């Protein structure tokens, strides 16, 4: 079953730049997908359309049964609750502890204190940060901060995890750690995972589905793909 479906999607920004030309793409539930491509090829734009930060100019996007292109602003939260989103720059709240940062995602959707507690500790255990619950973001390494962000993204058991260059700021060892955690979430929970990356080694090593964009067009979609320098 396809959890994400794009049909003839085009995205042209207000300033006239076209980031995506006529993209059709299906992603099966439970899959682990790398999205690669050169700078400016439209990877982030694609992700933004999936979590409805941007609307497509043309075409249809269905994510987890929701018609994203037609989703009203006031209903976007319904989509977001099905998704966990991770960025290169972590996006944590600096004045809140690790625990509070993760709990934040539960609180704002109205979870009880007990439910929040159980789920936050579980999420922090999965990312291996249970011993740092009281630390503040600036007391953590980049890899640890990204793990907090991942914990926050998965604390609500989302159907999908969208990661835009999650290892972009990390050294190779840390990157492998992070990818292992994401892979584990995909395997243990069946969460569909989309990872945008420039990291050639990781893509080649993990042998996952690879989707390649080039100048706003889909040029390759392989089940067990590798990072192909010619396309990137």
């Amino acid at each position, binding site marked *: 079953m396809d959890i994400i479906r794009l049909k003839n999607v085009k995205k042209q920004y207000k300033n006239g730049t076209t980031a995506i030309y006529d993209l059709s793409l299906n992603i099966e539930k439970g899959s682990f997908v790398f999205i690669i491509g050169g700078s400016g090829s439209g990877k982030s734009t694609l992700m933004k359309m999936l*979590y409805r930060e941007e609307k497509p100019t043309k075409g249809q996007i269905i994510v987890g049964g929701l018609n994203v292109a037609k989703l009203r*602003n*006031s209903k*976007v*939260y*319904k*989509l*977001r*609750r099905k*998704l966990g*989103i991770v960025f290169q720059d972590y*996006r944590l*709240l600096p004045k809140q502890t690790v625990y509070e940062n993760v709990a*934040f*995602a539960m*609180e*704002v*959707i*109205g979870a*009880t204190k007990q439910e929040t507690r159980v789920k936050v500790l579980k999420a922090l255990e999965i990312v291996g940060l249970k011993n740092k619950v009281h630390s503040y973001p600036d007391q953590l390494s980049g890899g640890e901060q990204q793990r907090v962000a991942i914990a*926050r*993204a998965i604390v*609500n058991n989302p159907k999908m995890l969208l990661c835009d260059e999650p290892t972009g700021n990390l050294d190779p060892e840390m990157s492998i750690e992070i990818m292992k955690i994401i892979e584990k979430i995909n395997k243990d929970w069946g969460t569909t995972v989309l990872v945008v990356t420039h990291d050639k080694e990781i893509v080649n090593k993990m042998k996952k589905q690879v989707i390649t964009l080039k100048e706003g067009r889909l040029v390759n979609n392989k089940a067990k793909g590798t990072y192909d320098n010619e396309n990137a």
Partner: protein
Amino acid sequence: MKMLRMLGRSIRDAFKSVFRNFSLSLASISCITITLIIVAISIMASYNVSNFTEEIEKDLTIVAFVENSATKEEIENIKNELKNISNINQKEIKYESKSQVKQEMQTQSEIFNTVMEGWDEEDNPLKDTFQIKVKNAEEISKTAKQIEKIEKIAIVRYGEGMVDKLITAFDSIKKVTYGTVIALILVTIFLIINTIKLTIYSRKREISIMRLVGASNFTIKTPFIIEGMFLGLLGSLIPIGMIIFGYPALYDRMNGYVFTPLVNLISPTPFVYTVSLMIMIIGIIVGMIGSSSAVRKYLKV
């Protein structure tokens, strides 16, 4: 249950925010305080003014003098015509024949008594009178003109100038206060909008993360709106204190009246509590208007 929990969170956030940006909040609160003090004074003054205009109006009488040549039937006619004028209180039409007027005047003063003693029915230069009360004092001059047109009515008298002037004076005072109050409220709203705008900006990161993790618009907006209401509530505290302690003190000092015992002040209880409640509600509403417009303008979701 969930709703209540979320509301609790919003209130906590709003509370924190007021104290986090305290100097800014203080500016808004002071502005609300000043506005509400003036609003409170206007409200109390205008209640007192309408209270004593009502009292004056109750006592306002038109006196219509009947020509001496009028017959009994004609007097009966006049009475019926008076009843047909809509602004006249039908139960308050009092007829006195000139001999009754004479008697009344004689009991009022010794001098009148001696002078008038010699008059018999024919010599009596006084006139038969109607004493009439109106329903609406503002239309008294119009009513007086209507009465003048009735046949066999000689002269019509009422507290002309004084009453008219008093009423128009109160009217213009009211207009000026309303104008001032509205202007002050607008300035206050503007300040609250700015305060909330800065709170929104200072929490941009938090807001964007809230959106990301699926907080509803309602959840995102409510704390800011509550913050505005909170500013309004805090701004109403000093004015309420001034009402509750100030008005009774003033009342005691003036012995409950202005200039003459005819013009009574409204007694403090429960008046001060009613006005305090009004002030608190106005404060909260003004705060809410300010914060909701800031949210609408600066928090695009």
